[in-house]
């Protein structure tokens, strides 16, 4: 296995994306649930709520994107290959 570094890089990239997606997935689920509850309780505030929700989701999603970028870096810009 002379290309051990590549194997480890691929595995770590997959792990990074996979685990990195868990947190944002849970967080987004909670955020959407809270937003739904708020909208159900106060439908007239749906505009403000959904705008805030989108911005918040984008913020949360950024974490997953970071994980993806790290994975991409590991895959395509690996300094050890």
């Amino acid at each position, binding site marked *: 296995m002379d290309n051990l570094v590549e194997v480890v890089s691929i595995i770590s990239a997959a792990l990074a994306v996979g685990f990195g997606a868990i947190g944002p997935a849970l967080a987004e689920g909670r955020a959407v649930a809270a937003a739904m509850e708020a909208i159900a309780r106060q439908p*007239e*505030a*749906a*505009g*403000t709520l*959904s*705008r805030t929700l*989108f*911005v918040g989701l*984008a913020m949360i*999603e*950024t974490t997953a*994107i*970071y994980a*993806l*970028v790290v994975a*991409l*870096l590991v895959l*395509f*810009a690996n300094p050890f290959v």
Partner: protein
Amino acid sequence: MDNPLITEPLFHIGPVPIAEPVLVNWALMAVLGLGSALLTRRLSRTPSTAQTVAELFVSTIDGQISDTMNRDPAPYRGLIGSIFLFVLVANWSSLIPGIEPPTAHLETDAALALIVFVATVLYGIKNKGLRGYLATFAEPSWVMIPLNIVEQITRTFSLIVRLFGNVMSGVFVIGIVLSLAGLFLPIPLMALDLLTGAVQAYIFAVLATVFIGSAVGEGHAAPSMQKDPSHG
């Protein structure tokens, strides 16, 4: 598979390397500029359909800005609206075969985020003065100064990476699926890509508005703007 992190120059004009995003950007500029000029060449008080759409677009952006900033949207309308329109069109340009969206390359996103960053600083200085703007970094106390500076940089960086990651991953996934399956399979992914592109354009614009709004401070309520809660 191409490395999505590397932008290869297509050709050189003198010493300047011209990459594909730059070319696509020029094309988009030409299309948007000519379209706008054609659209607004004959504005009338009894609007045509296109003019109605444009007015709806502009007033929606105005409403979003004034909702977010509690300010008269006139000074920020051009910047925010242009960023939104450009990101949207750039994201959706992946529909054209053979065209890779410019936002799928780090340089375009970095350019946009850089413009937002500079605009944030400029609007803050313009509204509060240099001393007043710098004083906002010491809020709520001087201990927060390093954190605030770091926040300025990291949020710009996250702006770059968010847009880049979303668009690039979409392009990437579609490329992978296309290389695997071929004909009809990428269509749902492309639809998702359209949705993601629109949402990302909206988020980019909203975040830019939030950054600028926090830089210029709490505004007085703009009296002429009506609330428009149906968009979002």
